[in-house]
Every structure is written in structure tokens, then in C-alpha cells.
């Protein structure tokens, strides 16, 4: 059920902030600037016309060879109004970071850790930006297109509770 007029409402709410917008496969897509994103996300969550109370998914795509190299994809969902919105933010390779949304949606916490783990995109002000699927000693970020699929990793030193304990948590 595509919510008609969602895009025009968003355009009216944030004049000049929406870099691109289009609809596809029954949902709307907008492209935002990295620095405007957090304020817009907060409004999208709290405004009764949008009520995007869930961050369903956050992931990145590595367009190696293109500029900007990375594209972040935020999939927002409103459980009360039953509409979806996809937000994209493009991030260059030499400044691979974005602002955290973990204070807006709690799911942002783990999702951003995964994007950091897999793509090496940092999230500023994230409370606890550790790797999540890989181990701390892992070298590189496996879902980058320049990470070879057959690459091997160095052996990790054995943990010992006395001589080489786990980091404190």
C-alpha cells in the first residue's frame, strides 16, 4: 500500500534538504546529506504525519571506483501508519563516517556496529562501536569490494584468564 503523498509531505517539511527523491516497488526513497540526517530522522520519528517508529534495517553498499564510494541505506518503517521510507546517505571513502542514529532508534546500535564491522564506516558518537560478527583482531572489513574473497587472516593469540585476559566489558 504505497502512502500517496508521503514524498510531497517530506519535501514540504524539509525544504531544500532532500537531495533526490523517487518511488520504486511501492515505497519511497529519499537521498539526504550526511550532516542534515540526524535532525531529519528525529523529525521523521516524532512527527505524527510520518511516525517512523522503527529502523528496520541499515546497511551499506560499496560502489568501488565511483565517487562517493559508499552508500548507506536506512529502511524506516511506521508500524502505526503502515508505510515505509528508504533513506540513502552517500559517504566518501576518505571520510568514511556518518552520525549515529542509535539515540533515535535503539536498533541503530547493533546495525551500526555491523556496518562498521563489514564496511569500516564509522559512526560518530556511537556509544560502543565494536565489531559484532567478526572478532576484534580481524584485519580489514570483509564486505568491501577490495577485500578478496579468499583472503586469509593471521592467527589470533590464545586467551588466558591470567596472562592474556579478555578485554573488560
Amino acid at each position, binding site marked *: 500500500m504505497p502512502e500517496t503523498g508521503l514524498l510531497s509531505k517530506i519535501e514540504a517539511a524539509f525544504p531544500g534538504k532532500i537531495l533526490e527523491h523517487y518511488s*520504486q516497488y511501492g515505497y519511497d526513497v529519499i537521498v539526504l546529506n550526511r550532516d542534515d540526517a540526524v535532525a531529519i530522522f528525529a523529525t521523521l520519528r516524532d512527527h505524527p504525519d510520518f511516525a517512523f517508529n522503527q529502523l*528496520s*534495517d541499515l546497511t551499506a*553498499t560499496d560502489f568501488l571506483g565511483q565517487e562517493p564510494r559508499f552508500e548507506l541505506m536506512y529502511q524506516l518503517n511506521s508500524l502505526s501508519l503502515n508505510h515505509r521510507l528508504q533513506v540513502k546517505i552517500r559517504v566518501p571513502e576518505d571520510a568514511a563516517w556518518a552520525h549515529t542514529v542509535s539515540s533515535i532508534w535503539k536498533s541503530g*546500535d*547493533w546495525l551500526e556496529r555491523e556496518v562498521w564491522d563489514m564496511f569500516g564506516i564509522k559512526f560518530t558518537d556511537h556509544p560502543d562501536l565494536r565489531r559484532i*560478527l567478526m572478532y576484534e583482531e580481524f584485519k580489514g572489513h*570483509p564486505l568491501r569490494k577490495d577485500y578478496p*574473497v579468499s583472503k586469509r587472516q593471521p592467527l589470533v593469540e590464545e586467551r588466558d584468564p591470567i596472562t592474556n585476559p579478555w578485554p573488560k566489558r
Partner: protein
Amino acid sequence: MAATATIPDVVEMELDPTSEVMSLQMGPSHPATHGTIKFWLKLDGEKILNCDVEIGYLHRGFEKMCEQRTWNHVVPYTDRLNYISPLINNVGFALAAEKMLDLEVPERCQYIRMIMSEISRMTDHFTCLGMGAAEAGALSVAFYALEARETLFDIVTAVTGARLTVSYTRVGGVTQDLPEGFADRIRGAFVDIRQVMADCDALLSKNRIFIERMSGVGVIPAEDVVSYGVTGPLLRACGVGYDVRKAYPYLFYDRVEFTVPTGTQGDNYDRFSVRFEEIRQSMRIIEQALDQIRPGPVRVDDPRITLPQKKDVYGNIEGLMNHFKLVIEGVRIPKGDIYQAVEGANGELGFYLVSDGSGRPYRVRVRPPCFFGMAALGQMLKGCLISDIITTFGMINMIGGECDR
């Protein structure tokens, strides 16, 4: 190993000044955590002050591997996401790829996909409920539930040829039609399954031990559950009736009648009850679909998408070339990206696909529903006892293959 009580979360817990906070690592290979997972606990006696959940032990590079293969080669990989309900993963991936192709699959194929998805939802729920009850001490329920599950797995085997690694869908259809006598077999199985459910209900619904282990444990408020991105039975147990099948209907879910059960307390007992009722609703959906399904083709007839008949492959050069091109180069999907969600057994199972127009996916991202439940687990467990980890973790129904990919 004693730690100081300076962690902000711990201070809130009104610590007894004489007590000592203990750090404990539980897992990654703990007999009660089916799936490899580690809990970093801060304990005051048996009470959990803080729980840091560590996942990733079953990471096999699913998303990276998908980028190396053709679109149809991804289907067997999706079997290994949630391996208790592999058909839902197959269907979700196929739907996303077909939407990018702007392809309408035949009606019979859509009904088959719907029936098989619901069977998978039932096998998943039976596994979760049976194991959840067994971990709370009700071992008979586990045997009843597994018996019902095996009845369904036998049907899945008859349709697809495999119990778990089914690889049943392809871009543009399903591999083969339903076998002879499928509808009668399902109806016969449902008679047994309804009996099993009545037995389980009788064993549990007035069982004081079970209720006290489950009720009021692992409670989390609805707004936090929503914020954590949790969907499926965990969300509905908190009273939020969100179901992808109702909110964004796909296949023919808008042609069948079913209700979305919800809970009130958001505790483990509600999570159990919601899943229990969902099994009944799945049976309703399957029975209606069996009444509505008509004979017909089960995949699209398009040489760019589906493989030719074997007699053409062996009999003429066009068929042979068609087969070769599809197998070696794969189906070509137009440039673009899509987010497509289906209702998995544990919640919203999303596929985000990016295509660069070649025969291989540029990026395949899976939104695993139990990942979000695991993110919320730390909050659910705060203030509970160690033994409550077992039941709460059981009701999240974390499937390692899906959570860690």
C-alpha cells in the same frame, strides 16, 4: 573475578553494599544455548545486573559469498539462513529478485509458495515451542512437538526432496509441482497436528511449573521493542499487531482470512502463546489456499529466466544454448536496488538486493529478524535470574545461521 560496582547500569539496581558483583562468561558452547552465543554477565548472586550479548560465532560470509555467484545460486545459500524454516527464505529472495525483473509468476506458483511458507512457519514454531518447553522441564511436550514437526518435514521432503536444505524456489517459479495427493496428505497431517496441539495445551496451560517459569519473565515494554527493531511473535506478544502479511501483503495473503494473535504482557508466556496460536492460523491459511489453488504452470515460460525443458536441451541447439547461457551467465536482473520483506517465522525477513545489471548480485543483504531480538535480549534479562536466560533466549528463537549469516 570481582569487578567494581561502577558500571552505570549496575548502580541503578540498588545493590546491597555488602554484595560483590561477579563477572561470568556464559557460552559460547553452553548446552542450553542452542546456537553458539556468548553472554557476558554481571551478577549479584543469581540476579543479572547486566548482560552483554556476543553474536557472530556462526558467521560464514553469506553476503560476501552471494556476490560471487549467479542469482539462482543464492537460493541454496538462503536455505542456510534460518534452517528451520528455509522455504520462507527461498520465497523472500525469489520475490525480491522477481520484483526487480517486474515479473508476475503464475497463480499456482504463488499459492504453492504461500502454502510452503506456512508449513515452514509451523515447523519453526513447533521447534521453538517444543525446545522452549523442554528447557523449562516439560520434556514430553518437546517429543509431541517434534513428532508434529517431523510429520510436516515428511511433507516438505515429498515436495522438495530435502528436509532442510530445500532450495525450492527459483527466480521465476518453483522447481517442481506439488506431488500427487498433496492436499489429502496435508489434511490428514493436520488432524494429527491438532491432536498434538491439544495434548501440548493440556500439558502446559494449567501447569504451574511452566507458567511460573514463563510468566512475567523477560518483560520489555512495547515502545522499546519497537525501537529495537523487533518484529514477529516477540513484538506481537507486547500487543503490537504488526505482521508483514497484513501490513504489506505479498503473494495471496490478501485472499485468505487469518487473524494476527497478540499478547498483553510482553513476557515469555505471551511469546509462547502467540506462537502457539500462529500455528493454528497457519493451518487456516493452508486449508483456504488448498481450496483456492487450481492446476496450472508453476514457473514462468520465459527463456531468459527459466531453464528450458530437458528434451529441448538434449534435442536442439537453441535449447542447449539457452541452458548453457542461463547456467553459466545467470538470469540478468536490471540495474537497481530493492528492499523486499516477507513475514518470517521470527519476524520481518528483509532482502535488500543491489544489481549492476550483470548476471550476479552486486550486493545481497538479509535483514535477519532474530538479530534484533538478540539486541533486545540484554534489556529483557536485566533483573532476571540466571535460569531465566534459558527460557528468554529460547523464546527469542535465535537461529545462528540467520543471526550471524
